């Protein structure tokens, strides 16, 4: 099978899966899968950029996705004036002091004489930390005590929510730059563990810094880029045209809203995909792959490998951040406790590997297919388990088996990954 035929048939399969869901289950579920499939495909593109183009092993996808989610709160929620008045400036000053002391420490490390620079840095950091805590902590406490039940945080900028998507990308890019500067600059080969760690830290910050985004109390009711279902149902014009399509207003409004998201997300996916393809074909992309295939030769030819790696790492992470912001927008809420590495890091890896690492189309297709399975394995497993347990008499075993079906999806994802790696290690759409 030629490459293009293969690509077309894989995407045909994706279309069949989604349309099939629409026909057999409901169009509502089909659109749900499509929307999250679009988001997954973008995350998958980001990881593919890092792994497929450059061979960078990023196991901290979750952290960048979560930063994207945070940006939605920071950009789109209305500011809480009372909280700002209570301690907003203190918090900002504290953070600035913290950043300043880190900058001073770095400066001291590079400028101070070798003999005592270690002590100098330690002293600056300790003093900086004490100062930061003294300024910051009362501010945070004050902010968190403002209407703790409903707000208790600084709120956002109150800007249109779509703006949060690029901001999410920027936030993730900034974090990636710091990690990349440390891990890639010092010792290019400890990136994996560094990303694993930073992802956990990002989640810990989201869970604990209540002044920032309410922590585990969650931020709900995020603004949406599409109209609200209720408003649509109250709009006589909409009800009329829904009747024209032969739908009741409730169904029509949910479909309309989801289709709106789908269009927005598809536009972003296409933009990212086109850019990624252009990058892949550009001299930059060719150089990235040359570095990946033979780093030593590339270094010998005078290429700044670390710098290129940093570029691609920041870019890939930014894409994950954009996707994370889109996902939180779709959910309409930020719930830090739902971020789990199996779902947000390793599942994305399954998408890339199954789709075909190094191939952008493969990564996109992998995103759709794996997301479809992630959603659909549970009902399928339920049906299967129902069949298996049907002849069994009622008892704890039957109840336990039926109850445990929800964990089948993890097993299935592992199995799919292992089967693809074993029998088709280049993925559904191979690199070349």
């Amino acid at each position, binding site marked *: 099978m030629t490459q293009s035929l293969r690509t077309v048939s894989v995407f045909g399969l994706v279309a069949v899966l989604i349309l099939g869901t629409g026909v057999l289950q409901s169009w509502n579920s089909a659109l749900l899968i499509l929307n999250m499939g679009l988001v997954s495909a973008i995350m998958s593109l980001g990881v593919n950029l890092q792994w497929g183009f450059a061979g960078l092993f990023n196991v901290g996808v979750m952290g960048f996705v979560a930063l994207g989610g945070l940006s939605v709160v920071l950009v789109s929620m209305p500011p809480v004036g009372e909280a700002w008045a209570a301690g907003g400036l203190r918090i900002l000053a504290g953070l600035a002091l913290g950043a300043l002391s880190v900058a001073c420490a770095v400066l001291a490390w590079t400028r101070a004489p070798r003999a005592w620079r270690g002590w100098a840095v330690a002293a600056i950091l300790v003093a900086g930390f004490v100062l930061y805590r003294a300024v910051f902590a009362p501010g945070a406490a004050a902010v968190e005590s403002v209407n703790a039940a409903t707000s208790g945080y600084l709120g956002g900028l109150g800007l249109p929510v779509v703006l949060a998507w690029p901001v999410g990308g920027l936030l993730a890019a900034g974090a990636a730059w710091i990690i990349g500067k*440390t891990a890639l600059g010092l*010792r290019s080969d400890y990136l994996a*563990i560094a990303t694993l*760690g930073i992802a956990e830290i990002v989640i810990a910050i989201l869970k604990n810094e209540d002044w920032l985004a309410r922590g585990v109390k969650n931020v709900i009711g995020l603004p949406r880029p599409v109209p609200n279902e209720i408003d649509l149902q109250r709009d006589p014009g909409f009800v009329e045209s829904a009747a024209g399509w032969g739908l009741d207003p409730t169904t029509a409004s949910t479909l309309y809203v989801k289709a709106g998201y789908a269009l927005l997300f598809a536009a972003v996916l296409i933009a990212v995909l086109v850019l990624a393809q252009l990058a892949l074909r550009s001299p930059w992309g060719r150089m990235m792959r040359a570095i990946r295939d033979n780093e030593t030769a590339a270094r010998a030819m005078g290429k700044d490998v670390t710098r290129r790696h940093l570029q691609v790492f920041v870019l890939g992470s930014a894409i994950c951040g954009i996707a994370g912001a889109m996902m939180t927008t779709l959910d309409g809420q930020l719930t830090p406790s739902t971020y789990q590495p199996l779902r947000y890091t390793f599942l994305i890896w399954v998408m890339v590997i199954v789709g075909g690492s190094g191939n952008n189309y493969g990564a996109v297709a992998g995103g759709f297919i794996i997301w479809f399975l992630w959603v659909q394995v549970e009902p399928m497993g339920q049906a299967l388990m129902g069949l298996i347990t049907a002849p069994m008499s009622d008892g704890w075993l039957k109840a336990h088996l039926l109850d445990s079906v929800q964990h089948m999806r993890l097993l299935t994802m592992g199995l799919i990954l292992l089967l693809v790696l074993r029998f088709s290690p280049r993925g559904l759409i191979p690199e070349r």
Partner: protein
Amino acid sequence: MDFLNAFVALSNFVLIPAIAYGSQLALGALGVTLVYGILRFSNFAHGDTMAFGTMVAILATWGLQAAGVTLGPLPTALLAIPVGILGCAALVLATDRLVYRFYRAQKAVPVILVIVSMGVMFIYNGITRFIIGPDDQAFADGARFLINARQFREMTGLAEPLAIRSTQAITLVTALIVVAALFWFLNRTKTGKSMRAYSDNEDLALLSGIDPERVVRVTWIIVAGLATIAGVLYGLDKTYKPFTYFQLLLPIFAAAIVGGLGSPLGAIAGGFVIAFSEVGLTYAWKKVLTYLLPGPLEPDGLVQLLATDYKFAVSFMILVIVLLFRPTGLFRGKSV
């Protein structure tokens, strides 16, 4: 100033918990480092291997408890550890036969094995949740304290109480025995030496007639043993929840890397470095400082450097510092 009370408080809240946690991390890191040395990849499924072995041990514990078998003051789970190890060894050996062996025969590059271990991680995770569920499970029994606070105060007459939980003592003793046995095995037996030889120079080991498949099998059995013991001790000391075990992956990897990947001695040292930093940085030092400092200097706040929830950040910071100043780890890791 009251050094004695300060030291008791320090022991109670920092030293003893950190020693117990460090032993658990060390056992986990030993498993990771053995796989890295012999099979040459980082096993992302290690946390879930621990979770699975512990689950088998917990099921066996419940069986024993139901049958009325107990160890008196000691937790029944100690009796169930061998069952857990057997179950875990069966699982990892089956995995090796069905999954890893193929890639070994193909001489696949290590990074492929890492990705394969991700798949295995999903499967183990699914199996464990399927059997025992994702929730907390209680399985500790026996005496809760070796020394409780009241006894200690009566014994010493100090104001500050000291409590040593029996699980902390058991952790330390078990870890000492296991580590001693492991080092005896690696340094004194022919099979152990052949494992070190294989880890050092695979081609030469083959030329010397060392059977690689046998080395790999023995390695997996030892790893299963270490993982199960570490998991059961952690579960007894804290709590058993599959997801927590998965999260242990980060401090365990950090311990192995800080010590020097591939070095068993380093894994142990790394485990304690990580544990002491985590506990030390997230402990509220107010009490200890109150005993040590004269009245006017006594701190007002808790003097807690980091909230407990940031303990992952500690593993991470230690890792970065060690990589900055000594990139090969405390003990230059190379071979087992």
